[in-house]
Every structure is written in C-alpha cells, then in structure tokens.
C-alpha cells in the first residue's frame, strides 16, 4: 500500500517551483509509504532528434562520464548527461532504439528507468524524505510530475520494485492498492512480448498499458480496458508527455483526492499532501468517481 501524488501546472509561472511542491507532497505521505519513493518529472524537452533516458546504477561513483564519451564516440553523435543522486539523465541525439541497443550491449548492468522527450524518472529505497533530498527534487523545474511513496505489500523493497514504473515513451504509472490477478496477467503479457524485471503487481499494470498502447489504443481506451481486465483495488495515476490521468477501480476503497485551481491540478491519496499548495484552501476539491477516467493535457 502506498501514497500517490500528481501535480500538473496550468500556469508556467509555477514551473520553477514544481520540484519543491512535489517534494513537500511526497514528504506528507511518508507515513503511508515509508519503504521507498519515486517520482517522474516532465522537464527540459530534448531537442528534435534526441532522446532522454534516465539511467540507474547501484555503484556510488559509477563512471557516467565514461559512458557518455564512449556512446558519443561510437555513434558519432552528440551526447550529454546530468547526474542526480544515484541516477543519470542522458540526452542523446539518436533514435531511442539505437540508445537502447547500445546500452544493452555495452552497459548491460545499467538500468533504464524512463525514456522519452521530457520524462525523467527517479526512484529509490528509503524514507521518502531522504529520497527526495538525495535527488535534490527541490531544485527541479518542470511542467508536471507524478510521485509515489511505498509501503511494500507483497513484493520486495528494492529500487526496482519502487514506483513509478515506466510503460513506454514519456509514460509512467503509480499505483495505490493491491491487484489480485496480476500473476496470470504477467504470464500472458510475457507471451505478448512484454518483459518484466520484478514480481511487483504494479509493474504488471504498467506492462498491460504499454501493451495496449503499443497495439494502437489511446490512453483513455487503455485505461477503460484496464478497469475490466485488472482485478483488485487500485487508484492509478498515469503520466504522459503532456499531462496525466487518474482512474479508480469500480469498488473504489483506496483513497483519491483531486484538487484544481486556475494555476494547477493536483492529485493525492490524502488531502494533507495537497494542503500546502498555493491556493489549496480555495481549490475545487473532489473525489474521482469509480471506474471513470479523468485526464488533463497541456494545450
């Protein structure tokens, strides 16, 4: 069980403080998710023809500079990177498949956490307050972000098992709840080409959405299918390149609060996490209905 948060800025004036606000949201939900934390933040769009990958390696002083140089030399393209805690955001002027291919051949022990034009995805074991500090989330600017604090129910507490899970380009998923048919679903998805790193139920949901989106479904269609195909209790928040979506299962026991002002839309498992946002006291506050997809997009 866990806490989930999402913050979508309607006004670019608030973009410099996105990380600061998300950090406070995550800290507010540390009690319900003390084991690990993670967030996906959409910022610094990559130049046309480039791709951003968030990478992770458990070694403290991993040779990221070396990786950047090697990749750049071998592909003859422009590559740069930015370390942040135990993660590294690589921007490379090449198609995504080229980058993936190179990494799996030359750096198989480097984990790819998230890929896209804008997304940066960070997650780690530890109390959420410590995790956001280590990633210096406070200083990050961006247009929108999702976050998660984890209380592991059935699978292990590791970096890999933490949320968000990346489901595709600029896509990510956070989940509060507990699925009940994920094991069978994982096997089925495995036979349809989805690879899994963990035994985590959320990863299965992420894989399910990736699969449907890959087959051409829109985000709304994929989430609607999920309502009938995924069994169990859940509030899902999904991040996309230009917005986010929220959906609850038909029984809707897990909490979810939505708040909206002229400046932002926020989502959280508890109002406490939203309370400190500027203008929260006057925001429109409501709860998403069960089995209904809610989504917001930048225009």
């Amino acid at each position, binding site marked *: 069980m866990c806490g989930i948060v999402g913050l979508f800025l309607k006004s670019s004036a608030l973009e410099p403080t996105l990380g600061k606000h998300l950090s406070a949201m995550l800290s507010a939900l540390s009690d319900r998710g003390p084991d690990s934390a993670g967030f996906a933040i959409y910022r610094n769009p990559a130049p046309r023809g480039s791709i951003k990958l968030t990478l992770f390696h458990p070694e403290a002083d991993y040779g990221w500079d070396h990786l950047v140089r090697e990749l750049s030399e071998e592909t003859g393209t422009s590559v740069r990177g930015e370390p942040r805690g135990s993660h590294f955001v690589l921007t490379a002027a090449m198609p995504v498949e080229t980058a993936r291919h190179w990494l799996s051949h030359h750096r198989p022990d480097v984990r790819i956490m998230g890929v896209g034009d804008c997304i940066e995805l960070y997650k780690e074991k530890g109390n959420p307050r410590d995790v956001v500090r280590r990633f210096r989330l406070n200083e990050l600017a961006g247009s929108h972000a999702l976050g998660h604090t984890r209380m592991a129910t059935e699978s292990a507490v590791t970096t890999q098992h933490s949320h968000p899970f990346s489901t595709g380009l600029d896509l990510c998923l956070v989940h*509060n709840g507990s699925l009940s048919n994920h094991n069978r679903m994982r096997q089925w998805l495995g036979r349809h080409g989805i690879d899994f790193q963990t035994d985590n139920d959320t990863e299965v949901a992420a894989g399910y959405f990736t699969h449907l989106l890959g087959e051409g479904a829109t985000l709304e269609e994929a989430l609607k299918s999920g309502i009938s195909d995924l069994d169990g209790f859940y509030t899902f928040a999904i991040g996309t390149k230009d917005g986010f979506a929220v959906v609850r299962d038909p029984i809707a026991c897990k909490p979810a609060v939505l708040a909206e002002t002229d400046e932002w839309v926020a989502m959280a498992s508890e109002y406490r996490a939203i309370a400190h946002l500027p203008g929260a006291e006057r925001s429109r506050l409501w709860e998403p209905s069960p089995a209904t997809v809610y989504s917001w997009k930048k225009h």
Partner: protein
Amino acid sequence: MPRSTKTTPAAPSPAANPRGHREHASFPPVVVAEIQRAAREGIYDIRGLGAKRRLPSFDDLIFLGASISRYPLEGYRERCATNVTIGSRFAKKPIELKIPITIAGMSFGSLSANAKEALGRAASEMGTSTTTGDGGMTEEERRSSTTLVYQVLPSRYGHDPDHMRRCEAIEVVVGQGAKPGGGGMLLGLKVTERVAGMRTLPVGIDQRSACRHPDWTGPDDLEIKIAELREVTDWEKPIYVKVGATRVKYDVALAVKSGADAVVVDGMQGGTGATQEVFIEHVGIPTLPAVRQAVEALQELDMHRKVQLIVSGGIRNGADVAKALALGADAVSIGTAALIALNCNAPLFLEDYAKLETAPGYCHHCQTGRCPVGVTTQDPKLEARLDPSLAAQRVRNYLSTMVLEAQTLARACGKSHLHNLEPEDLAALTIEAAAMAGVPLAGTDWIPGRGGA
C-alpha cells in the same frame, strides 16, 4: 443466512463392512453424505469450531531435552519464569501477563454470558487476559476479567468508545484462522433480545456481516486507523492486529508498518462460532508454518520481541505452548481448547447431543444455539447447565496444567524462562513439519527447502 443444518453421519468403522465391499477413497461415506445433504438443502453447510481434518501440527515436533551437552533445571525448585509483557512498543500502559496463554476473542452472542464470565474469572485468577468478540463488551465480562482486550471488527457491532476506554488493550481484527477473508456470522436462534440489542439488529434474524472494515482498507489506511484509536484512548493501550494465517510474512510486516504493538496470527485450526464448512477446511495455512513465517517477518524488520507475536489456532496443551514459544512466539491464545475446558463436548446430556445428530467428541454445532452444555447458547435453560464458578475452576485448572507442562519441557531443555526456548531445541518427526517449522528432521540436519542433508 442459512438455517442450521444437520451433521453428516460419522464414517462407519471397518467392523461395519464385514463382507469387505470395496471402499471409495475419493467418495467415502462422509463425502457421500455431504453431497446428499447439499442435494437436499441447496446451501453450504455451516458449523462451529475449526478445521477438523488432519494437518501438520505441533504434534510432529519434539523437544531435544537435556543430556550430556545440555543440563536440565530441577523442577519446582529452580525457577522457570512464565511472564510476558505485551505492548511495549508504543503504549503508555503495556500489559503484564503472568502466563503466556491468553483467552482468544469469542463473542457474547456466540458464547453464553455464563461462559464469558467463567473465562474471565479463570483468566483473572491466572493473571492473564480475555478478549471481547464480535458484538462488543458485556458488563459481566468486564467485571470478571481483570485484563480485557477489546476487539475492533469489520462489523463494529456494539462498538462503544467508553467500553474501549475501559479495557486494557485493543485488537483490530482483520481476519481469523477459521475464515480468513470472511466476516462474522450468527444465526437467528442466537440473535436474542439481548444480543440483538447490543448489535442493533432485529431479533431472530440471521446476521449478515461485512468482511472488510467500513472505514479503512489496506495497511496504509490501517496505519491512520490505528493512530485514531490511539488518539481516542490517549495512547495508553497496546494495539494488536489480528490476522488469519494466509500470506503471513507480508501481513505481519504490514501490521508492524501500520504501527501495531502486537500481532495475533490465527492458523487454520482456529475455531469460530459459525461459518461455512468450506471456509473452515479450505482457506488458510496451518498454525505450524504460520508461526515460523510470522517470526521471520519480525526478525527481518528487527522487530522480534519488540512487536509481540501471539499465536493461536489449535493450541491444546503445554507442549503446544512450549513449541509455539520455541519457534519464537511471545504468547499463545486459546479458543476451542478453553471451550472444551468449560464443558464443550463433555459427555453430559447425551440425549441433547443425539437430538443434534451428533455425540460428545464429535459435536461442532455451536451455530445452532442448542449447545447441550450451555457454552455456545443463548437459551437460558441450556445456559443454566453451565455453572460459572465450577466452569471457571475447570478453565483455571486447565490453564495451570498447560503452564506446568510447558515449564516441565522448558526445564528439561535447561531454560529458566519459557522465552529462552529456541527452534534449536526442536526436531521434526515428518518431512512436512520440518519444512513448515523450519526445524531439522530428527536424526538429520535436513530442513527441506533449505539445503543440508
């Protein structure tokens, strides 16, 4: 809710098949009778008590008493202490028990008032606790029991903050061994005026119950609920979380993360006043592996002995108590065994057992409300057959016996406190028990699933 149903007849003994007709192992007489009953009645069978089928249990473990490498303690003269403290983690007033055996939650409604009183008196004399049940606290129970644990259940029948504040501890019941994932059940005959009044139900109806709590689902929200209970009671009382044994490792870890002071794990042998037979026999794991998994979960969080573990489900004698403690439990809880000490299945009023189509030793008809010995009934005439004083004495004697038995075994292993019993004092007699308890098969170093030979 279904009406009370008749029993299936007992399987005939070999003497009843002198001509040697071929028996059918998949369809023995008990199964045949049950299919025929289902065909007549169109509804699942409902009964009381716990799993009746044979299971790997504490019987399959033995103690390695002292010999040359270990030295025993002298009985009586050399102390073997039995006390235990529950709730040291957060509560201002942890509970001190003189013996590591408590009386499990059983509702007034399921049990008669005389039964509850007798249990309370016995527990008080022995310096241990009793527990309310689904339906709330009675005054008789509060008066007779010096240490009373107040259950908070999915139904919230009779839930009263004043009662909660008058008790010594709080037990949030997520589930019980007889029916993990199920809610309470009380059939119409037992929903008398008094019971109905306490539970805010119409008299005589079959009580339907919720299986989830109304105001929280999941350990993240349980944490907030536990915090509320602490606030209501000014952080004084230890808060237990009780689960039926299924995914024990996850559940115990989550109970700890939710802020519990103690965890109660009830194996599939755990009893009930009434539930579907299929639930009792086919859901949940036995107590033996549940204890080991619960202790491992606590150890992995470095919470063993800091969050206390109380184990229940088929605890019957001092050997079971000692073995549960050796595997790492802080205390055990008894339900069915306490009822038997009261008089459940005693060979008295035989014609009334016969009316229920059963016999002493086989009866599990708590759900009918026609308990021949007055333990699980609301009928005053039947209840009168249970004298609270005499019954209290029986339970006290039984508890004393269990403690002495446990001490005997502990002393034989050289322990001056029951808590110093360890898994290394045990060996297993079967492969299943070795695997489940995490204890080597006697005469070998082999724990199935963990290597060695």
